[in-house]
């Protein structure tokens, strides 16, 4: 009942992809160093964290607030295993540290998942939130791992070089990881595992009756999401060259949820739409100081973001992606009034995440 997106691609769609790919590949030539090296790279890894949440919510019906916690585990382990100021500074080779960090994050993700998978609704939210906060306090208290003022000056793999003077390598690595993660999750949705996960999302009771192990599927989904969150964490540590407990605080948990909702909680690519919107808003609203500051006061960024968040949620529960789809449908409906409707395939393939724009209809949060 599902199929890869390419099978349904129209010429216009291909044009869009080609244009997007071209812009992203040529970003270092098109944009200023600051724009692509600081803002786009950040949007790419921030989008990855949000995508690990969106993956769980769209395929598994689980809005998990633990993803920043998993992100923190991977980030801190990686930062401690390489040469750095603060923390353990074990001085392993960066790539070995990456592998260990991802493995550890997956283990933690599976444990979180195994515990949370048996709960639903508000209890699920609370349990995953508790995981996120637990990771924050753990690293806040265990200063052997989090250093005096965070783990600083983290050693980068040689291929990245100096990300401040030449941000291109890190940008391309982030882009590659983001694209790979996106395609991998799309593919995962078409596998028997992905299909049964979506079945569980839609009706866990019926799937259980059919003999599926619901908790196991959910737990494994957490493991898969942990890989994505861990990849994002490693990119973020390379990007910042540092990590501290503040990087995985409750504020960050909320930011990632906001990004996912702004982008569209049930669209994988919404993660990056939301992340880009968030990063641009964050950067430019701060540079509009003091004009905005005089009106909104000291918490201008949060106030502005909160207002935009409210507006998006009220206008389009499906986030920016949902708003775009609504607008497109209206335009198309207007066109259809003037010409004969083209005949579409009957009973054709369904997109794996076809949740419409109505968040209220989402299962998994009864």
């Amino acid at each position, binding site marked *: 009942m599902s199929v890869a997106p390419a099978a349904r*691609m129209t010429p*216009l*769609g*291909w044009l*869009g*992809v080609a244009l*997007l790919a071209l*812009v*992203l590949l040529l970003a270092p030539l*098109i*944009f*200023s*160093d*600051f*724009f692509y*090296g*600081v803002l*786009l790279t*950040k949007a790419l890894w921030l989008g990855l964290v949000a995508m690990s949440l969106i993956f769980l919510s769209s395929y598994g019906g689980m809005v998990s607030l633990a993803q920043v916690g998993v992100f923190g585990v991977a980030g801190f382990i990686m930062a401690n295993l390489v040469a750095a*100021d603060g923390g353990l500074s074990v001085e392993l080779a960066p790539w070995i540290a990456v592998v260990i960090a991802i493995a550890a994050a997956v283990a933690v993700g599976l444990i979180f998942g195994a515990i949370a998978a048996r709960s639903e609704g508000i209890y699920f939210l609370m349990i995953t939130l508790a995981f996120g906060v637990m990771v924050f*306090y753990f690293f*806040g208290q265990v200063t052997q791992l989090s250093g*005096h*003022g*965070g783990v600083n*000056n983290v050693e980068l793999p040689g291929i990245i070089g*100096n990300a*401040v003077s030449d941000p291109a390598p890190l940008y391309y690595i982030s882009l590659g990881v983001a694209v790979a993660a996106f395609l991998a999750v799309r593919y995962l949705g078409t596998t028997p595992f992905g299909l049964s996960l979506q079945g569980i999302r839609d009706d866990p009771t019926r799937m259980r009756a059919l003999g599926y192990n619901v908790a196991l599927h959910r737990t494994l989904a957490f493991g898969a999401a942990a890989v994505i969150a861990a990849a994002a964490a490693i990119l973020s540590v390379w990007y*910042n*060259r*540092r990590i*501290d407990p*503040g*990087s995985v*605080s409750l*504020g960050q948990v909320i930011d990632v949820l906001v990004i996912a909702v702004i982008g569209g909680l049930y*669209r994988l*690519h919404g993660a990056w*739409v939301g992340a*880009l919107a968030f990063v641009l808003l*964050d*950067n*430019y609203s*701060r*540079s509009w*100081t*003091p004009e905005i*500051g*005089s009106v909104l006061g000291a918490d*201008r960024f949060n106030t502005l973001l909160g207002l935009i968040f409210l507006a998006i949620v009220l206008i389009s529960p499906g986030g*920016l*992606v949902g708003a*775009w789809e609504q607008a497109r*449908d209206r335009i198309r409906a207007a066109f259809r009034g003037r010409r004969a*409707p083209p005949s*579409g395939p009957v*009973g054709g393939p*369904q*997109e794996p995440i*076809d949740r419409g724009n109505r968040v209220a209809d989402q299962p998994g949060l009864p």
Partner: protein
Amino acid sequence: MSEHHERKRRRRLLPALALIPVLALVIAGCGDDDDDDSEAGGDAIKVGFLSTCEGAFGAFYEATAGGFNVPLINRGAEAVSDVPSDGIEGGEIAGQPVEVVGYGCSDETPDVAVQEARRLIEQEDADILIGPLSGDEGIAIANYALEQPDKTFINGASGAQDTTLKVQAPNFFRFHTDGAQWSAGVGDFAYNELGWRTAAVIGDDYSFPYTSVGGFIADFCAVGGDVVERIWPPLGETDYSSFIAQIPDNVDGVYLGIGGEGLIAFVEQYIEQKGAFKPDEVIGNLFVDDPLVLEEIGNRMLGVHTSGNTAGDSTEPQVEEYVAEIDAVYPEVAEAAASVFVYHYYTAVEAMAQAIEELDGDISDTQEFHEVLAGIELSGSDAAYGDVRLDDNRQAISDNYIKQVVEGPKGPTVQTIARIPEVDQTFGGLFTPETPAPDRQNPECAEADLPWAGQAEPVDFGG
């Protein structure tokens, strides 16, 4: 399945993604415009300001911006309004125009501080960055400075010891004393004036209190005292009763390193469990000095001693001149002129301006500019609470003050009772780049030779 739904599903993904580059292009276009504008300013020296406008220290944003603006206003710039972060116009140093490229706003997390520093330097093209405000931010910015050797960083108000002692970025300068230096002399005072032989310390469980309390421990133990208990309640704790119970009854005194609202809760619970504060048995760090905190709890802490690098009650002429300078432009900020947030940003910009003046406005040779800046000495009303000069790590050596909470005409206030001259960051070699950073166990309690032991000068401003 209706035909409408079928169509709705198609091509959902790609056009949405195609929006991203369009949006990005629009924004990048705006960004390019900004660059063009700033280039039109010619050879203006571009300065970025970084402080926090969100989080626990957000309330001090305008105070820091005021401290930052006044040295430029003294040199001919005009305040746009009585809100400091609205900015200034027409600043000039040694005939060279000075442009403030942005008033950056962090939320006291290092990640956001670095992000803002990058925006000010890489997007707005600042040559010099003044900031940040809080401890962990400072360590992160000093590390970022290592990656930007051609830019100049002057610390705003952040007080972590590592920032200068360990990171040692050659282009990072701090013209005020650090968190441990703010406790210098108070251990000596406790031992020799208050007669303490043993003490317990209690502080929030994070880096700044480690440093601040560490300064007391180093100082107190150096002259022969013994710290028998170190208690670290988690940051954000509101119920201190179990931690207060851990304070031994048989110690001579208690040193407090608990900040902000936590301190208010702590004081109430302490009095409930242990009875009223006995003035000679409690010393607080600079959190106790905070005017807002004093208003709440000062009446219950009368007689308690504190320390820090400003003397709010000072009537010396250079202090009056400094306060008058601020009062002329920002009367609201002037009330807090002795606040470390105003004073430290002020000395940072003053030092920057003097270095630029020494080079007749030409800072194109960054190396030379850094050398001149490292040699700047501030005195008189430029550093009203004590002359400032830098050590080899570009960290300030300056005076520290011991104060006491007293009854004032408008409620509790502080009275300065002693000055510790020329406090250096290493405590005479006790802290080095190799010694572990202050934490729950460090520094160790050990006797040592303190340069300022017995050197405290009695001060009386007639308050």
